[in-house]
């Protein structure tokens, strides 16, 4: 209970920090809208010349997939998101980790709650407006039913949990590899591609798609997006939620073990 109070307090603080960066949010929204529009049109052009893509998706389905995946994208480099990741990943380089360690709060709770606050604001200020613009312009449709919409919402939340776990593992690794910009670039590249944020995983080369499905990446964006467009329904959708939940819990356990192992190696140079 006490940890929950701390979690909500930190998350709320980061909601306020994020809201203080209003100009950044307008920029993020503009960039996300532009990116999404480019990707939707790019994939439409690719589909027209790809029999495999035509067999897999109708034009409307593919456009919806791409736009919704961009809305859901947890690798989105929004202003607040980027600031937070740079802070978390650079905290070992900068020595800021010292301030995290002198407070009576579990490091995992601290990081997850910071990201939760930023995710909440990012969803309200960037994701929902992006969805609304593409919905109103007819690029994307609605989920087939209310149940499907609820399952989509749950899947987005679980996708966030998996992504937060992945981010935490990457941030913990900076204790060993003190090159946080390199790790962050790796994180963004891998997550954007293998989560299904840029393209449906079925359109990736088979070996890469297998890699994305065997590892937790598909649980971040692909699963909720496939639920939205109705490719995963009923029991299949519930099974996908179960897999996401399992990965979410697994990542929490993995993150905890990694942190306990690595925290002894933290070096904070200078004053």
């Amino acid at each position, binding site marked *: 209970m*006490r940890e929950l*109070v*701390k979690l*909500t*307090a*930190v998350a709320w*603080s980061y909601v*306020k*920090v994020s809201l*203080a*960066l209003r100009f950044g949010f307008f920029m993020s929204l503009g960039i996300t809208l532009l990116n999404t529009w480019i990707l939707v049109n790019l994939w439409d052009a690719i589909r027209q010349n790809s029999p495999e893509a035509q067999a897999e998706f109708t034009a409307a389905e593919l456009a919806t997939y791409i736009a919704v995946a961009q809305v859901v994208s947890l690798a989105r480099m929004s202003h607040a998101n980027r600031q937070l990741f740079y802070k978390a990943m650079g905290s070992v380089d900068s*020595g*800021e*980790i*010292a*301030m995290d*360690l*002198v*407070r*009576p*709060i*579990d490091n995992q709770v601290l990081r997850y709650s910071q990201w939760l606050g930023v995710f909440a604001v990012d969803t309200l200020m960037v994701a929902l407006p992006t969805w609304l613009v593409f919905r109103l312009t007819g690029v994307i449709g609605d989920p087939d039913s209310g149940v499907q919409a609820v399952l989509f919402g749950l899947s987005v939340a679980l996708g966030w949990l998996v992504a937060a776990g992945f981010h935490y593992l990457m941030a913990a690794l900076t204790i060993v590899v003190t090159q946080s910009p390199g790790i962050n670039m790796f994180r963004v590249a891998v997550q954007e591609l293998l989560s299904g944020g840029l393209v449906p995983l079925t359109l990736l080369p088979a070996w890469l798609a297998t890699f994305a499905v065997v590892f937790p990446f598909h649980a971040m964006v692909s699963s909720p997006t496939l639920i939205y467009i109705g490719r995963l329904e009923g029991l299949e959708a519930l099974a996908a939620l179960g897999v996401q939940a399992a990965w979410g819990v697994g990542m929490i356990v993995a993150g905890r073990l990694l942190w306990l192992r690595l*925290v*002894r*190696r*933290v*070096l*904070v140079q*200078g*004053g």
Partner: protein
Amino acid sequence: MSFDVAEGEIVGLLGPNGAGKSTTVKILAGVLYPTSGDARILGLDPFEQRIDNARNIGVLFGQRSHLLWDLPPIDAYALLRKVYGLSQADYEARLRELSELLGLDELMRQSVRTLSLGQRMRCELAAAFLHRPRVVYLDEPTIGLDIEGKHAIREFIRSISREQQTAIILTTHDLTDIQELCERVLVLNEGALIYDGSLEHLLNRHASTRSIQAELADGSAHATRARLAERWPGAAIVVDGTRLRVSGIGAAEDIVSAVSLIMETARLRSITVLDPPIEDVILSVYQHGVE
């Protein structure tokens, strides 16, 4: 190194760059894992029992911040209240008390990014002391501040340690901080504790660098110099008109004897025994160890 710190004590940690001051503080704060040896803060292992230890300690690292850069300090305090589990009533009372001591009334509602360094440091101190820690580590708390800012912070530290019996370990390169706040100093060099005792005692042990300055009212300067030179052949004695300056006499007893000898030989307008500048003493300790 091995040392204990009592409740209500303000201990200064001194040493040249790289001596191990910050490392010591970080081990005591639970930030770093010691490769050997152990530490206990109020009976707790600061690293293995990090979260319990964190409830008892307050930290101010001069180059790091408790505050949220884009928000007013009051938001960071509200967050810390939840993190440390303070009741609303206790939090409000404590914040009122700290606000009075540090003059934060208006500051804590301004965005941190608009505060000057001195104002921010006062707000940082409030964050470090908000949860009534029993042990506080202050690393360079007055770095970069003007005279007024330094004075305000020293007053605050002195008052809170005295009234609330908070143990404070102070790391600083500003020796005035040490002189004004610490009765006890720990001097570190190359990771070893080379002195643990009072600042006054350290200065006394280096009394050989004390000097005497006298203004004579008669023409006896050269006669006085001759008598001093006869008694202390190694001393440096300079006569400038009616002014006499003597250094290199030696131990404290000899200083007293030299003053007596000058008073017997000459008629005086004034006489002063000058302590060596503390910087010189500390530099000598760093370079040659404790005498």
